[in-house]
């Protein structure tokens, strides 16, 4: 007599959804664990990676040993002090410098030997001994590279000043595109979005669903008219919105607080984030329907969600440097595709050659994970 039955049923379905979504939202706000996952963990990560982690070595400790000081050695050491890369300490003997290296007080030693000043003028030139601390291979490499730069600058200066010798015959002109100041924050902070969304998406969803089983409330829900699909969507929408809110907050922080350039378009970022979020939610849902226990769900999500997103995604570590089997695993990690998109959208712009294939991969992963989760959630308790 009023609405046709099909429309009536649809309306009832929408009302059920609205009720479920409101309930989830209230629960997230009232539960300390969800607060930790949704707000504290992201803040901690942003703090750690925004402020603490920087891959750019500045002020590397270097022990400069000058066995017989002359004007030449002074001009060389002046380049160390002025380079900005180093915090040099000066020694007149090798022994204490090497001891400092052993204790980890400096990252490397540069030795200008007794014969250095005379050898400069001789055929074959003078040898500058450089010792890097190899215990941290990355810093060791950077150290050697920086010493190389200082040395080249010094040679060029000498050549110009007519002090003899030539500058380097071949001049390498390095250009680093998208990030000319080589700020590691510029790629760490956008990448962090993927990590934070993995946490809000997968971990929070996993705990929210597992909690219904843990506390037995699922039984009450299943006994009502709500359909499984509605119950799942009711769970996903609030976390989805929370995750997207996280994207917005993080993007704002990245651009305004950490000064990361944003060269792509907002809509591309939003679209890719939505796809990734869907994949993360699907993973959380899948884990929790299988685990049915908050503790196990939490642990599994950290193991198969957070850790791989952290390690196998090009976020901090260099995926291309890993062995083939590790790279093979990484193809199953959604964060890998999302981080590729993030770095491009922030630092390079809307490069469709990067965005399209990676989005396609994200879409496929989201579809598979969500479909699996839906298929495995049963109407019955067994």
């Amino acid at each position, binding site marked *: 007599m009023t609405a046709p039955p099909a429309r009536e049923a649809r309306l009832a379905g929408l009302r059920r959804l609205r009720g479920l979504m409101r309930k989830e939202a209230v629960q997230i706000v009232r539960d300390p*664990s969800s607060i*930790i996952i949704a707000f504290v*963990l992201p803040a*901690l990560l942003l703090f*750690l990676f925004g*402020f*603490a*982690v*920087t891959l*750019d070595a500045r*002020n590397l400790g270097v022990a400069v040993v000058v066995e017989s000081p002359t004007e030449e050695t002074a001009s060389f050491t002046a380049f160390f002090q002025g380079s900005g890369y180093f915090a040099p300490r000066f020694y007149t003997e090798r022994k204490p410098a090497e001891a400092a290296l*052993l204790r*980890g007080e400096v*990252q490397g030693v540069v030795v200008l030997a007794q014969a250095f000043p005379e050898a*400069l003028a001789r055929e074959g030139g*003078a*040898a500058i*001994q450089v010792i*890097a*601390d*190899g*215990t*941290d*291979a*990355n810093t*060791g*490499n*950077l150290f*050697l*590279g920086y010493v*190389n730069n200082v*040395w080249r600058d010094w040679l060029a200066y000498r050549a110009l000043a007519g002090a003899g*010798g030539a*500058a*380097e*015959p*071949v*001049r390498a002109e*390095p*250009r*680093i*595109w*998208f*990030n*000319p100041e*080589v700020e590691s924050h*510029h*790629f760490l902070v956008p990448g962090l979005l993927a990590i934070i969304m993995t946490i809000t998406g997968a971990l929070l969803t996993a705990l929210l669903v597992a909690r219904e089983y843990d506390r037995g409330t699922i039984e009450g829900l299943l006994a009502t008219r709500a359909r499984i699909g509605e119950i799942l969507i009711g769970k996903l929408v609030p976390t989805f919105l929370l995750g997207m809110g996280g994207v917005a907050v993080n993007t704002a922080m990245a651009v305004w607080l950490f000064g990361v350039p944003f060269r792509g378009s907002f809509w591309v970022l939003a679209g890719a984030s939505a796809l990734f979020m869907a994949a993360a939610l699907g993973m959380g849902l899948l884990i929790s329907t299988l685990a049915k226990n*908050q503790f196990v769900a939490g*642990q599994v999500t*950290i193991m198969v969600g957070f850790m791989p997103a952290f390690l196998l995604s090009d976020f*901090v570590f*260099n995926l*291309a*440097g890993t062995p083939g089997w*590790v790279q093979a695993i990484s193809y199953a990690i959604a964060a890998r595709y999302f981080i*590729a998109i993030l770095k491009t959208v922030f630092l390079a*712009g809307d*490069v469709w*050659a990067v965005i399209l294939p990676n989005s396609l991969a994200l879409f496929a992963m989201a579809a598979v994970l969500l479909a699996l989760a839906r298929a495995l959630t049963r109407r019955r308790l067994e």
Partner: protein
Amino acid sequence: MWRRIVALVVKEFLAVLKDRKSRAVLLVLPFLQLGVFPFATTFEVTGIRLAVLNEDAGAEGRELVSRFTATPTFRAVATLTHSSEIAPMIDSRRAELVLHVGKTFSRALKTGASAPVQLIADGRNSNTALITLAYAGEIVGAFGREHARAPLPAALVDRAWFNPNLGSLWSILPGILAIIISVATTSITAFSLAREKEVGTFQQLLVTPLRPVEIVIGKTLPALAIGLGESAVIVAAMVLLYRMPLVGRVGLLYVGIPLFLLANIGMGLMVSSVARTQQQALLGAFLFLLPEVILSGFATPIGNMPDWIQTLTYVNPMRYFLVISQGVFLKDLPADAVLAQAWPMALIALGSLTVAGWLFRRRLY
């Protein structure tokens, strides 16, 4: 008193070994971590995708290009013919580095003018870009010195001590040891009390004559023993499977390990005395472990961090243990240097265990 503690320790061992979840934390997780982490946590670059734009007609240009393509570090993926092709190559990430040899390259080299070579790197991962450019710079530098008309007045003779190849595996593994044993002991202690609270046995413990100190000791000793055992297995695996050198004295390593474990156990117990459920304990342990690892100097040197964060790291036990672990494995760190790192850990352990015991008495009410 000791009789009661012994009973508690025995029970704790049995409970950990018989519980499926704890067994997984103890037996599966560490070896998964030991198997994957060292390979995943690398900054090394190999197989860099290289695009070459050689506008030089001379032999020198070709020779320089062949120097690049001959190393395993670079993998030539494209040969460009015009500079307009550079941008799309980099943008689409088909190439990570473009080597651009200009038209005047051979001529300049012959006349003694400085011959420019452009190297364009993708800065979306600045760390990789830097390392790539450093490699490229070395190749160009070596090439230049060979073609120099006048000898250079000074040359660098560089080498790396302790890890001559600067292989990332050797510098990662001592950190992996620290991560695995801290994750295992922190989570085990964090879960153990929370589980007792969840199941209700905690109340039961409190009405026995056990004192809070005894409960802390009873919870600490098994975790310490498990951590020590696990560390021994991992050290053996590092040396035997990963062929890691162990140049220092193992005894000194075992000055650091127990103190590091105790500091982590204290943290785990603190988490445990605050958490009401195992799920909260899991999150609490995670909230502690994440900064512990990241602010330890494992991934990035502490010296690079802002001063105020460097100050913060003084309460991080892993910061000290990492120095000992790397030092003993690679450097033969002298005993006094080990002690200098050991006492702050002892202090942290004492502090965290005391706070745990205190918190734990307070949470009864």
